[in-house]
């Protein structure tokens, strides 16, 4: 097992009490327990408080644009099928600015993991409604309350038969580590929507709010049962189930792309003879 210390310790720019601290810790634990070394993993993130997470552990990092972590992560996957690719960003990043990429990533089902820190608010820009903010919740930019229905990423992912769909809570560390490990191990796209309090800007969905509502799914829930999964996916109110909501071991994107079989693109050599033949085919 890789020692967790290999992942280092960094000063963060997060608020004391923020759920991000716990998530970061769990990510490091999961990686070390999975025996993945820092240089084997590539973290791709967007912009936001959550998206800073990869800055705070030893890893390969592509800290890209707000909303665009998923395309970059998928590009990395296509370039190097040996890389453990993890996209990590906030609810605004993934479901707001990046909503189209979220849909496309669910459809592609590449072997990678999305850790979506879901604090139901835009943290870094100081508290505007995010796609997961409850309808009616008042913010500085939504003085009449957030006007739209909240987005339920888990339900949409289940609808689309995404390979691995989980909802977790930053406050339940043991559980979180376990789920992250399963997600990374799953051979297809894994969505881990992590409920996370934002102590500075979300005064509704607090630690206590989540704590009171989240309950772990037990064996009675069969994640391979789509109907059951859909029921759990839409349960988000007085009770919020956490755990693996849905799982489908269907073949991943990579299997439909023969050109990926030859391994990392960085190690490929141009076949000049073939290319000369190709040029010749224009005669």
């Amino acid at each position, binding site marked *: 097992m890789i020692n967790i210390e290999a992942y280092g310790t960094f000063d963060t720019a997060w608020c004391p009490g923020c759920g991000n601290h716990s998530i970061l810790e769990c990510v490091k634990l999961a990686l070390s327990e999975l025996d993945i*070394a*820092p*240089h*084997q993993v*590539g973290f*791709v993130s967007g*912009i936001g408080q959550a998206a*800073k997470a990869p*800055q705070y552990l*030893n*890893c*390969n*990092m*592509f*800290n*890209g*644009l707000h909303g*665009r972590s*998923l*395309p*970059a*992560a*998928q*590009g*990395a*996957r*296509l*370039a*190097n099928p*040996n*890389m453990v690719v993890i996209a990590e960003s906030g609810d605004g990043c993934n479901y707001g600015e990046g909503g*189209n*990429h979220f*849909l*496309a990533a669910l459809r592609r089902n590449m072997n990678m993991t999305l850790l979506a820190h879901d604090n139901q608010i835009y943290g870094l820009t100081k508290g505007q409604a995010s796609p997961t903010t409850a309808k009616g919740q008042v913010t500085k930019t939504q003085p009449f309350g957030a006007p739209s229905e909240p987005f339920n990423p888990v339900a949409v992912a289940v609808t689309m038969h995404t390979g691995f769909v989980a909802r977790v809570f930053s406050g339940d560390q043991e559980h979180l580590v376990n789920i992250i490990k399963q997600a990374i191990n799953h051979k297809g796209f894994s969505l881990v929507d992590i409920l996370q309090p934002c102590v500075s800007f979300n005064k509704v969905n607090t630690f206590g709010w989540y704590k009171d509502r989240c309950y772990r799914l037990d064996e009675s829930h069969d994640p391979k049962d789509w109907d059951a999964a859909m029921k759990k996916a839409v349960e988000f109110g007085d009770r919020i189930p956490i755990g693996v909501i849905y799982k489908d071991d269907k073949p991943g994107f990579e299997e439909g*792309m023969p*050109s*990926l079989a*030859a391994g*990392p*693109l*960085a*190690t*490929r050599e*141009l*076949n*000049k003879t*073939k*290319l*000369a033949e*190709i*040029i*010749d*085919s*224009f*005669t």
Partner: protein
Amino acid sequence: MSEMSINILIGGEAGQGLVTIGQLMAKALVRGGHDVLVNQDYMSRIRGGHNFFAIRTGPEPIQCTTEMVDILVALNKETLEIHGSQLTERGIVVADEKIDCRGLNALKVPFNDLASKPLFYNVVALGVLGAAVCNDIAILEGLLQDTFGKKGSEIVASNLEVLRKAYAWVKEQNFDFSCMPPPPENPDKRIMINGNEAIALGALAAGCNFLSFYPMTPSTSVALTLINKGKELGFVAEQAEDEIAAINMALGASWAGARSIVTTSGGGFALMVEGISLAGVTETPVVVILVQRPGPATGLPTRTEQGDLNLALYAGHGEFPRAIFTPGTPEECFYLTHRAFDLAERYQTPMFVLSDQYLADSYRAVEPFDLDKLPEVAKPLLKPENPKEYKRYALSDDCISPRAIPGFSEALVKVDSDEHDEQGHIVEDAPTRVAQNSKRLCKGCGLWAEVVPPGYYGPDEPDVLFLCWGSTLGAALDASEMADLKVAVLHFTQVYPLKDEQFMPFLEAAKEVVCVEGNANGQFARLLRQETGYGVNNFILRFDGRPITARYILAGLKNIL
């Protein structure tokens, strides 16, 4: 000099197969040793409307398309109405016998008799046209064999039968096709290729192995060629959900070790602007192929223009270096795209190849590209020297930090869209910002030191110097040869950065400098003034979506002088 050339225009509705006929015909001509230059004009629709495919051909080099038509193949009546007035004195019409050719010199073809079913109309047209301009039916036969071979010998046989019948019928007519010059003796081997295909081959030759794109006319055929020709090379391509995904995917791939390209046109490129900036700050190589069409917005989606130079110059918020290549021929498309990859890797910043619909779709006969003569393209590091100490953005004298690929050593490769320190970690302090921003900008000096000089064609100290860039090269050359003044051409295949010592003497030696551009604002002339202070006073501009021709330039010149 295209004095000996003739221009064949095949016109009809979208869906009538005129592109198929045109491509086969052009290829036959190339195989026969002729030069060709194709101009494709099509509407933004799949069936109906009016399209044409013009092949200018002859035994000597052809440089640009022309409005004049020597052989007008009219697949419908409308074609005659639209193009009848373009016929030269020696002009001939080839049309179905049912079309009223109103006294024109016409070969009236009994399509119905020659084709056993409508499916074969195309082959009839090919046979007829082939008989007119290509005296060797074996070439046409070989072509059909190559084209239909995959579909089985029966299909080939039935097509050949129709071809031969049509060919023979024409020969029987004793129609005068003497306007078509004979092919040269012992011609060199040529391939037939258009601008977009040449870009794709240039990319492949540079080791490009990753494409993410979203379809957009007129860029799509670059992607199509990469995908379909790259199949055997292990090329990886993904059609993205949108252009934003395309550029970000390309950058993620590049970070992880791919050699990435994106292909797009105006509106799609507009969506990539933020991603371009990301390439700049993260110092991630990417080559952007921007095939222009007239804007603003959707504009004229299937036509040509050189209207996006300014956008390419400044795409991306903030400041970072870039180079912009503007090939004028398929050969230049190939070599400059290849070069763009090398520079992208060496300078770790986005590179641009600007083409346009005219060049994109314009087939030409080209000497096969010699892969062995190409310079090696730079490569990133798989294993940096001291992996544990590796810093992605290490400061150095030449401002270029060794670029390692993550995952192949213990080196951690951190790239960051925020301002960052040498390791790639987010920072906010002023000195680090200044160091890293200066480092990025300083790479521009290196780029400047190896600018491709503009091509100068024609006499010294000319009366008129045509200043042009990109696809207008051929028209400018043709016009310079046709004008009865002493005219030269200065053609930029790299429009940014500009190195004044490479061209200022030419500008100063000319009596009049005339800027020829396919846009309304004279964007290149403005760039030139910005970079050098040199102001151009004479303009020949075109922005109606049609390619600039020699005649257009000469008409413009008359107004100026």
